[in-house]
């Protein structure tokens, strides 16, 4: 059975305001979805619901046909999430950050973390404390986290924030490759995203 993510009838109410209701989403191998909408439309909330950090007020999320609330461990083993707060420790170097992350997450075999840092353009910075890096460079460390796992599903909240044009192309390429290899991605971004290959659908929140 092919891996798939399915959101059924999602509803979310926040501070007595309906963010969205009857939201359905289906994602198959090799597909990507860009969630769009004005500020405050609930993009981040939707992403947090999709990765199981928040439970929806109604509806459910299915991973391979099973509710993620019932089988958290299996779902989380195939998930990589980069949120608004990127989870990079300022007092650790990028190398230490990724090394720690690789011990609490399933990682690729024969992984060499330095090579991953090279790939995101931080080869020269691997031993500098992360708080000395720029905001964009810290975000690149978070993106590097995606590359050390072989998670099927990537959930990315504004991955392009504070990233320069060259970096945006790099991230787009990384996502394209992931999707091309049969992965799935859900991302939010205010700017148009172009993937070299693979399908990019758009989901618009009002």
């Amino acid at each position, binding site marked *: 059975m092919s891996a798939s993510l399915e959101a059924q009838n999602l509803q979310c109410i926040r501070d007595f305001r309906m963010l969205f209701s009857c939201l359905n989403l289906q994602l198959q191998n090799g597909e990507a979805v860009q969630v769009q909408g004005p500020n405050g439309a609930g993009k981040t909330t939707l992403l947090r619901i999709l990765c199981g*950090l928040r439970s929806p007020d109604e509806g459910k999320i299915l991973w391979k046909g099973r509710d993620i609330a019932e089988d958290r461990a299996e779902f989380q083993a195939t998930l990589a999430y980069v949120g608004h707060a990127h989870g990079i420790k300022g007092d650790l170097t990028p190398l230490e950050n990724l090394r720690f992350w690789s011990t*609490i997450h399933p*990682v690729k075999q024969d992984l060499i973390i330095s090579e991953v840092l090279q790939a995101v353009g931080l080869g020269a910075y691997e031993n500098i404390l992360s708080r000395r890096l720029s905001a964009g460079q810290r975000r690149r460390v978070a993106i590097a986290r995606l590359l050390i796992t072989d998670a099927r599903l990537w959930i990315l909240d504004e991955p392009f924030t504070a990233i320069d044009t060259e970096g945006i192309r790099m991230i787009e390429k990384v996502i394209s490759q992931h999707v091309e290899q049969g992965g799935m991605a859900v991302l939010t971004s205010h700017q148009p995203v172009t993937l070299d290959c693979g399908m990019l659908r758009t989901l618009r929140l009002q």
Partner: protein
Amino acid sequence: MSIQPGLAKGFFALLHRDLVLGIRHRHELLNPLLFFVIVVTLFPLGITPEASILKAIGPGVIWIAALLATMLGLDHLFRADFDDGSLEQMLLSTQPIPILVLGKVLAHWCITGLPLVLVSPLLAIFLNIPPDLIPTLMLSLIIGTPTLSFIGAIGVGLTVGLRGGGMLLSLLVLPLYVPVLIFGASIVQTAIGGMNPAGQFYVLGALLVFSMTLSPLATAAALRIAVH
């Protein structure tokens, strides 16, 4: 193919990471320790330098100061991880959250609790506690202060998502600290009176095992709610 990290590996990795972070953040670590030393040294100045009175109140003073110093450092337990998103990443990891909580609390104790134990002999001498009872005092603190950290972790887990949760944290945690304080302080008092404090040691030990077993589970549940 991916490599699934083992349980012990995640635990030790987090322990190691938090100890490294603690050492790189020394000033935060010194705060509770300094507080502990200042409070205890002010007692002889504020009450009386009379040796017999100090000897009577000494164990209680050291225990109260240790308890307050622990509370002072509690908020740091999950705050940084909550603010920078590391906590979300841990909750989304494949490791069981209680194991990670156990690692975090132990690291936190090594950074904030252990220094209190190590400096306590010096303070015991200030307060005229007989030198031969110093090992007893240290042992009571070694068993008692991790219990305080474990109980505190539940409160921190519940309040980390709130703005200004500090007040609430004290109210939640303080009542649960009372038994630890009573038995901990009475260990040295009993020993000064020439009796065997084994009974209090057993109760304190039982409290440690109890909190160490159940607190990670409760804290994990609280953290899930906090990031909601």
